[in-house]
């Protein structure tokens, strides 16, 4: 009888703290401290810092060519895009005009990088809602693109400074255009898989994690997250860099702002990227890919005194670098603006309020986050 009596004693309150991450397969190197009542989340507090490598400080101690190598480590999932941000900022400081062919190859590499990043996005979002097949399909198809990167740059994930100040480390290898063509056919296959309206997938994503446009702007959302909330903005169109102003492509926009609309934006963007790639290959000019001065760069090359902020539309949103030089061989200060900084701190904390515990991984991954570019 005594046992029964004990079982009837309930805790006074069903409020408790719940730690999502950092040692959780569904969160990456990042944690969220949740205050929970039953299944409902009362408040959330982001807990970053598990991947903080101090790149901003480290770059003050390194030469631009070494920084090209560091910059691709800012985000593991789209290293080429971050290399481009760094290279553009340095070129603007040094007043360099790079060869035409290099500009086209840069666009091709960055768009391929965007496609593989969006495939990861779809993969981890599927894993977040318990649809493991999607995860495996996405990572399988992503591998075709990684093989291309290995052929072109020498590295699958980290291209080791392929896009460097002054152009590119090396030209396209022989016969790569046919290979890329074949991979693009594979991407269409992947898109077909992504398009299937799995009813379970839809019920877990529609109407959940809704971010209204006004809140999205106030909380600093950019890129696909902002577009899914209804603002037509894309830095590739609004503030064109490289040769993006020569290509025809659409900016996908949706109004709902929920997980499903963010996922659809990712899907549409893969299709647009394929369009850009095809146009880039049609116009690809011949010639050199690096300025002669940078073929064998001198280590005591001075950076002109000045200040520059370069921002690009990378797969996750606005990726930018604010670099200040005082005329020395090393940058005086580098500030990296990662899109996940806003998406993982203010936006995530806001969206998790009032959500269910089961929806935490789905909301988390629907924001297309990367703890690496938040922590830097």
């Amino acid at each position: 009888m005594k046992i029964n009596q004990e079982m009837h004693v309930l805790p006074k309150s069903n409020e408790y703290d719940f730690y999502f991450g950092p040692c959780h397969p569904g969160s990456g190197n990042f944690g969220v401290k949740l205050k929970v009542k039953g299944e409902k989340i009362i408040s959330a507090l982001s807990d970053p810092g598990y991947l903080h490598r101090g790149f901003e400080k480290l770059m003050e101690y390194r030469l631009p060519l070494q920084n090209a190598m560091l910059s691709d480590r800012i985000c593991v999932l789209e290293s080429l895009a971050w290399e481009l941000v760094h290279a553009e900022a340095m070129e603007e400081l040094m007043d360099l005009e790079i060869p035409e062919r290099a500009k086209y190859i840069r666009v091709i590499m960055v768009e391929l990088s965007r496609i593989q990043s969006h495939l990861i996005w779809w993969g981890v979002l599927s894993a977040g809602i318990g649809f493991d097949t999607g995860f495996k399909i996405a990572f399988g198809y992503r591998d075709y693109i990684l093989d291309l990167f290995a052929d072109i740059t020498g590295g699958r994930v980290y291209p080791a400074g392929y896009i460097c100040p002054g152009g590119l480390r090396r030209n396209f290898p022989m016969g790569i255009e046919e290979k890329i063509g074949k991979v693009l056919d594979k991407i269409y296959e992947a898109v077909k898989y992504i398009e299937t309206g799995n009813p379970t997938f839809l019920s877990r994503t529609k109407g959940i994690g809704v971010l209204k446009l006004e809140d999205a702007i106030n909380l600093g959302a950019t890129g696909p997250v902002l577009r899914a909330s209804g603002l037509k903005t894309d830095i590739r169109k609004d503030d064109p860099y490289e040769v993006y102003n020569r290509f025809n492509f659409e900016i996908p926009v949706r109004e709902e702002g929920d997980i499903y609309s963010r996922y659809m934006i990712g899907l549409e963007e893969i299709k647009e990227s394929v369009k850009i790639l095809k146009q880039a290959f049609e116009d690809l000019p011949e010639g050199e890919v690096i300025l002669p001065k940078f073929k064998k760069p001198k280590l005591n090359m001075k950076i002109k005194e000045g200040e520059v902020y370069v921002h690009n539309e990378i797969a996750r949103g606005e990726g930018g670098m604010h670099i200040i030089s005082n005329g020395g061989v090393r940058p005086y200060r580098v500030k990296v603006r990662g899109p996940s900084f806003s998406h993982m701190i203010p936006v995530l904390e806001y969206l998790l309020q009032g959500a269910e515990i089961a929806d935490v991984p789905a909301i988390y991954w629907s924001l297309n986050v990367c703890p690496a570019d938040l922590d830097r």
Partner: protein
Amino acid sequence: MLDWAKWLKYEGFIHLSAISVSDWIEEKKYKVAYLLWSFKDNILFVLTTKIDRENPVIDSVIPLWGNNAQSHERENWEFFGINFKGNPNLIPLFTENWQGPPPFRKDFDWQEYVRDKHYNIENKRERGYYED
């Protein structure tokens, strides 16, 4: 500074990309740059101000750019020790139990700090860090 910021927000610079601080040690000043973007006109605007390095205090821009500004200010409070007046929640983002000076200041030598705090000259494997 806050009046300028208010005017810019009114003119359409509703997106705060980042707050970038640089340490000018010879001038004894911090330069605080607000990187702003207007979705309406597609213009980038950098609002810059200089504040005293030894006693860095500046008004918070949370009333203008909301919670986004809050987290950017938190980061700069942690790395440069700038006190943003009006920010209610200045707690560390990245570091844990940090005892030293603000780590992104120019006079902070991270190599020396790591040697003092975390390495041991007696240890054979770590002796290399003490040789120049």
